[in-house]
């Protein structure tokens, strides 16, 4: 509960309609896409102009109220669950694309702009914004920056952090700050934009971004390669990279996922295949032809049993239909879908797959694995029913084991979903005590009252 006077103050900033504290409304902002317990905020506000955002941050700080910023609430790590109560600030009314500059190839956007809509607006100007997280149709760019979202194009084009040139934000006291620039080069001061990327709303409330744009590739070619097992597919991935070919996407699916996709989407996948790779190369037409031929040969030399090259846009779409259907197909098998993103160096994919097999057996879990083979970012997806306490306990044990396995293979806890609430307890395992303390000191310095999304990344 917030006091009547505080509610009134918020209403004076954003209008009474945009202040919500009814029981049902508070419940509506108590969760996100992570499989975690909901926590209620005290009040939810939906500012319609940036000026109000600064005032809300100041009000939070003055009253020592936790402040959790929420875009579309699509993150998978609990980053937008208001775990300490307080204020939830919605950014989806702050969704303007302020500028798309074709000459200097950058764009300026507000935090609540939708990723896919922005990418489409950029494409309509003949330019390209590559980051394509799975939730892009609904997710906001603010959320993408806060989580450093990845996507299918990570291997060649990088992830969100590679496109952030500048971040404007409100500090904990509600002062408006600027960082970065519209220039390709900029060494003015600390590299604050990159500090903001992946900070999950713990360091500031971000308002606008300057994002880098690139020319779109002129041509592309997609293919599907089917392998008898994981090892042959993985060897092909290593060989492709070793041959100095960098596909824009290099996606992997295990036998279980292939079966699920075929069962649901009926796209003509061989359900007896051990694994498959979906590969796309792009760039200049001559380069594309050469790279595609190389990839084809490498796959065949490494034990590929069938390779299908898309001849046109329709066939290309068919190849990707299989990948797009992966999560949906798995999700339909059981009520609850726990989607992880432990990531390993790509040469360790076979070892990681072996570990996942052992974990599934040990904890009696159903795990389907697909993901970004090119960058080692796998998505082991545990299918379960969160209402079954005994089963869900095994799931939690399994998740712990997955992280241990990834770390033992020089991997990382999270490739692209973020730490949030879900993984903060593992932070020290990957780094060490001093590293976590260093981050905590930064947090304490810029947010002494610990109001900015408290409890995320760094835990208590």
């Amino acid at each position: 509960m917030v006091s009547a006077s505080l509610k009134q103050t918020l209403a004076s900033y954003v209008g009474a309609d945009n202040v919500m504290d009814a029981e049902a409304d508070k419940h509506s902002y108590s969760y996100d896409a992570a499989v975690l317990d909901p926590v209620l905020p005290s009040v939810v506000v939906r500012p319609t102009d940036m000026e109000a955002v600064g005032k809300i941050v100041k009000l939070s700080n003055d009253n020592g109220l936790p402040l959790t910023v929420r875009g579309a609430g699509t993150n998978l790590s609990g980053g937008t669950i208001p775990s300490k109560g307080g204020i939830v600030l919605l950014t989806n009314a702050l969704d303007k694309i302020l500028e798309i500059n074709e000459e200097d190839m950058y764009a300026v956007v507000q935090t609540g702009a939708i990723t896919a809509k922005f990418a489409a607006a950029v494409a309509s100007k003949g330019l390209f914004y590559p980051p394509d997280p799975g939730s892009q149709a609904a997710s906001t760019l603010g959320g993408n920056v806060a989580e450093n979202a990845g996507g299918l194009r990570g291997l060649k084009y990088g992830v969100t952090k590679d496109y952030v040139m500048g971040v404007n934000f409100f500090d904990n006291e509600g002062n408006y700050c600027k960082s970065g620039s519209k220039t390709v080069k900029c060494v003015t001061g600390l590299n604050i934009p990159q500090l903001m990327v992946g900070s999950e709303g713990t360091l500031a409330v971000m308002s606008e971004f300057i994002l880098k744009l690139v020319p779109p590739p002129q041509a592309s070619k997609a293919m599907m390669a089917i392998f008898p097992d994981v090892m042959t597919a993985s060897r092909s991935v290593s060989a492709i990279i070793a041959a100095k070919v960098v596909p824009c996407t290099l996606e992997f699916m295990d036998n279980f996922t292939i079966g699920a996709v075929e069962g649901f989407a009926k796209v003509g996948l061989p359900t007896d295949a051990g694994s498959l790779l979906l590969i796309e190369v792009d760039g200049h037409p001559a380069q594309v032809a050469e790279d595609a031929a190389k990839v084809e040969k490498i796959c065949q030399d490494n034990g590929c049993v069938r390779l299908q090259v898309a001849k046109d846009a329709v066939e290309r779409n068919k190849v990707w239909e299989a990948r797009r259907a992966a999560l949906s197909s798995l999700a339909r098998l059981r009520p609850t879908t726990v989607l992880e993103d432990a990531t390993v160096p790509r040469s360790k994919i076979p070892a990681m797959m072996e570990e996942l097999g052992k974990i599934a057996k040990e904890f009696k879990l159903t795990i389907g694995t697909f993901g970004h083979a090119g960058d080692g970012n796998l998505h082991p997806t545990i299918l379960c029913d969160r209402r079954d306490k005994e089963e869900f306990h095994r799931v939690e044990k399994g998740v712990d084991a997955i992280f241990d396995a990834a770390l033992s293979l020089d991997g990382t806890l999270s490739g692209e979903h973020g730490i949030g609430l879900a993984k903060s307890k593992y932070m020290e395992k990957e780094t060490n005590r001093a590293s976590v303390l260093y981050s905590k000191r930064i947090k304490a310095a810029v947010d002494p009252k610990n109001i900015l999304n408290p409890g995320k990344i760094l835990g208590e």
Partner: protein
Amino acid sequence: MADLNQMLKLLGELDDQIVGCMRCGMCQSVCPLFAETGRESDVARGKIALLEFLGHEMIKDTKAVKDRLDKCLLCGSCAAACPSGVKAVDIFIKARAIITAYIGLSPIKKAIFRGMLTKPALFNTLLALGSKFQGFFTSPVNDIIGSSCSKLLSPLLGDRHLLSLADKPLRSIGNLNTAPGKSGIKVAFFYGCVVDKMFTSVGESILKVFEHHGVGVYMPTEQVCCGVPSLASGDLTSYQDLVRMNLKVFGKGDFDYIITPCGTCTSAFHHVWPLMNEGFSQAERDQIEMLAGKAMDINAFIVDKLGVTAVEPASDAAKVTVHDPCHLKKSLGVSGQVRTALKANPNLQVVEMTGSDVCCGCGGSFNLQHYGVSTKIGKKKRDSIVATGADIVAAGCPACMMQIADMMSQAGDRIAVKHPVELYAQTLR
């Protein structure tokens, strides 16, 4: 007020469907209501979460959940796009019935559904009176669309631009029961409330199509509303009354198909009745299943069963753009046939609008309860229609036709609003 435990038990039975929602939030990208409001409780994920919290007694305020649950177009965009295949609309229809049984129906809805809709004689008499006197209260505003507005009735109707009730309802033709002609097909014709009382020319066009193609017609005038409006308001009692009245005249099933000009009525037979068959006897359930198998939209019938095909348009053909009604396309998968039926008319050329399958914002009684946001959604549809430069917009659903006519009339557009079958029937003698 009914028993709380009963409500919780019934919500518990929905739990298996509710838990399938993985809260990914992808429904935010397709929900027409969320696009306007940005509120989590307006989108499917938010509503499903509230139902889960209510069922698990984490929320006490049932009325607040009901208000949020009711604020939905039931357009099915979320279900059609859901990655994990959650049937959101099915959940919402069932939940509305469960919660309404607990809270009770509002007095005004009780008056409409139980006092009027389930009493066809009274309903028909009242509307006949309305038809007679509407001219005194309204003034025509747009001759192309045929709409009127009413200063006198504005406290009741707002700024709506309305289409007039027909002088004589379609039903006044009387019962029909003719033998199949050259097609060898016999159909039952379920015209639906709006075509009976407002768009009688749609009904007449359909009868003309049947006659032209030698289709035998069974049209009992004792037929009543399909029950979807009652169900959308959670009124299971009047829904069941209406289904039973319809089963009385259609239950024998001595016809090959039951044809309607309305995506919602067709999906009622095809999907909603079988879904909501609890409380019916086995014999009634069998009849419901039989009708589900025979229900077909008029456009699908014309193309798939009568074999009508597209022809080359004339050089001076008028431009027609197509609005795909939610229940017609998203529930029944009928969209290509609408275009084929239109292209069978050489005086028409089809020009596509962007987002032809985006909801028009009507949502039946949603328009009555939430006119403001319904209009905002509708205006976007109007803009898409106008951008095509079309002379006519075709929509295979009378409710969409009313909404689109209101939006375009208010904007002063001179674009006619037609049902596709009216335009196809123009080619017949």
